């Protein structure tokens, strides 16, 4: 069985195969599993999007989408998250080159960008609350904060996940065990970015054109 070899491999520290994340059955299972999870999460987010679209006109006495959203802030957040998607794929390139330093550098930048994105989002939420756009004030508010907040919590989970994998890589190096984990985490991170593409389109840009 594969993990027998994996175990064997960990002890002898033979050189990694070209695609270490797919070299073991465990690794292939993990990659398939994350794709299945991405499929499920797509439906989850789609339901939140649908709810938001149904309720976005119900702002009651609060500000409307056009009054609320600031294009520059959204553009900045988008740029940050899009760049982090690139840096995480560069981290995977480093992984394929068996280069621990490169992996740590690019994934480190990814985590920092993710944190910056979260900071910007929190700042944005505080601004909105000051303008009278609250979670409990209207159905629009509830739907908005639920959708964006769910995405934000995914970003937070991604940051935590990638950071903890960086610690493991620092301790154990790139092995047949850590590489599938890194690869899977980067897939998850791309997915978080994909969801944001729809958020800036459906929530912010479509909110601007009414």
């Amino acid at each position, binding site marked *: 069985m594969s993990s027998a070899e994996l175990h064997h491999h960990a002890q002898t520290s033979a050189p990694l195969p070209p695609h270490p994340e797919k070299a073991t059955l465990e690794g292939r299972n993990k990659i398939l599993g994350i794709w299945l999870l991405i499929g499920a999460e*797509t439906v989850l987010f789609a339901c939140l999007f649908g709810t938001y679209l149904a309720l976005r006109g119900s702002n009651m006495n609060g500000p409307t989408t056009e009054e609320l959203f600031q294009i520059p802030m959204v553009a900045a957040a988008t740029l940050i998250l899009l760049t982090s998607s690139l840096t995480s794929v560069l981290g995977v390139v480093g992984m394929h080159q068996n280069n621990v330093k490169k992996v740590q550098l690019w994934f480190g930048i990814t985590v920092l960008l993710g944190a910056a994105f979260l900071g910007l989002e929190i700042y944005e939420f505080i601004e909105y609350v000051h303008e009278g756009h609250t979670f409990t004030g209207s159905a629009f508010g509830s739907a908005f904060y639920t959708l964006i907040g769910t995405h934000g919590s995914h970003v937070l989970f991604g940051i935590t996940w990638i950071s903890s994998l960086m610690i493991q890589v620092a301790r154990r190096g790139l092995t047949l065990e850590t590489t599938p984990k890194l690869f899977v985490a980067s897939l998850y991170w791309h997915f978080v970015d994909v969801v944001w593409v729809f958020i800036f389109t*459906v929530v912010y840009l479509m909110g601007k054109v009414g």
Partner: protein
Amino acid sequence: METNVQHQPNQSVSEDRSMKYVLSFVWMLLLTGASFAIVTMHLVPENMVIPALLILAMLQVLLQFFTFMHLDFKKSRLTAVFTFSGIAIGFICAIALWLIS
């Protein structure tokens, strides 16, 4: 079930794909820029804005899937089938919630 852990030196195999990724990244930036431009500069007729935005978003997502995420119809067909089933079902859910509730 079989496993093949190939023990071969790998420096030659993983040539630097970085440039390819940077190129897709530039495409993504262009697509994003186009979306923002449509809204801020009123480039397309009013009734075409939302379809145009959705098409641009979909293009960018496909770009992510096939370049950054290495989705491959040939090598892992079922993975792609399940991913696109998720997108299709999600699309139906979102449209239904939007239009008939």
